[in-house]
């Protein structure tokens, strides 16, 4: 039992960690683009992302289900009901939250940093990377919060992972299973354990990554 819980916890960390890495890898450049470029529809995109913070996880799960299912366009990849599918789904799910946080952080610094970089002869992408560097603690914080959101979500893990024992079962799907069994006490203990994990990861990465 304990061994199984640890295995599930480890899987959760890896899957959602991958999701956070993926989301960061496209979310930060996207936020940067939104902050540094002035184009029509920018406000619209931003508001869409803010609205998407509230997309129900099952909806994300459902959409990707259609894409990944055997009869869907990417069915050939056989991604459905694998840990990778969960990671991809969670990465999509947390991107809006990540972008909302990162945009706020970048936007606040942009004016000054950008001007300074330009005044000293930076290329546009050098100015961008200076802006990123200036904001690193806050961006790290954004990724971290996105990771926490991912590890705590249920709908995507259920729809795309299927809660398969020993393969795609993660902490939240395990908790949901215990709830549906009526094992409320066990579900709560698992929830507490999950929080302990997220807290530890949060505290450690903030110690390493510096204050924000």
């Amino acid at each position, binding site marked *: 039992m304990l061994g199984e819980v640890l295995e599930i916890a480890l899987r959760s960390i890896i899957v959602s960690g991958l999701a956070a890495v993926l989301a960061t890898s496209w979310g930060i450049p996207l936020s940067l683009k939104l902050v540094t470029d002035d184009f029509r529809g920018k406000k619209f995109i931003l508001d869409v992302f803010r609205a998407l913070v509230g997309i129900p996880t099952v909806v994300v799960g459902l959409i990707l289900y259609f894409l990944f299912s055997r009869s869907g366009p990417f069915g050939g990849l056989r991604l459905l009901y694998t840990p990778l599918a969960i990671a991809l789904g969670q990465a999509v799910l947390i991107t809006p939250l990540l972008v909302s946080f990162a945009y706020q952080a970048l936007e606040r610094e942009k004016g*000054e*940093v950008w*001007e*300074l*970089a*330009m*005044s*000293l*002869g*930076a*290329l*546009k992408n*050098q100015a961008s990377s*200076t802006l990123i*560097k*200036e904001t690193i603690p806050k961006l790290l914080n954004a990724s971290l919060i996105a990771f926490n959101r991912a590890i705590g979500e249920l709908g995507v893990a259920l729809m795309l992972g299927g809660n398969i024992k020993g393969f795609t079962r993660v902490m939240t799907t395990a908790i949901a299973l215990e709830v549906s069994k009526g094992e409320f006490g066990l579900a709560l203990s698992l929830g507490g354990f999950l929080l302990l994990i997220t807290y530890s990861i949060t505290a450690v990465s903030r110690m390493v990554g510096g204050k924000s």
Partner: protein
Amino acid sequence: MIKLREVYFSYNKEPVVKGVSLSLGNECIALAGPNGAGKTTILKLMAGIYRPKKGEVFIEGKNIWKLPEKEAITLRRKVVYVHENPIVLRGSVLNNVIFGLELRGVSKEEARKKALKLMRKLGIDELAEKDAKNLSAGQAQLLALARALIVEPSYMLLDEPLANLDWKRRKSVLELLKELRETGRSIAIATHDAFLVSLVCSKAYIIENGSVVSETLPPAIFQ
């Protein structure tokens, strides 16, 4: 030579620079005039930080807003603008000073050496390892100057460079500027400081309400 030709600029609707033409050759020019006249804006236009709404900005004969980024950058890197309120990056003072060199791909070791030498000259070498966000006003001003000087720009655009400096350091900065003039650098200074201007500059543009209202000799403007 940096040249503005009939340049217009506005932050929102109202234009704040209205058809300004001026040039900075192998000389030191001063920009003077009342608060809000547009001195800072003009310097930023000269540096290629702001894009004019109308009119052209030439650096060494090329319209920098018509060049592709790759070509523009070699020109823009000859020009450095120093803000009136210093902008400070995270990290140590030293890291701030070498920023422009890093942009130009200079190795960290070489940049460090050069920076320390320059900082000694400006009397801020002891601050090298200090967190740059925690400087006094004058210290930050000196940091900004060092950060600009280190890239050895052909054109220096300085916005109130002596504000907040103590007398000893004003003197060293003035001497530095004179040295730069002797080696043929072009300098433009926006300032209210007659003393400074009269010591290094040979020409002054008086800006009022977004336009150049007269060109004169520096000492004349404050009378």
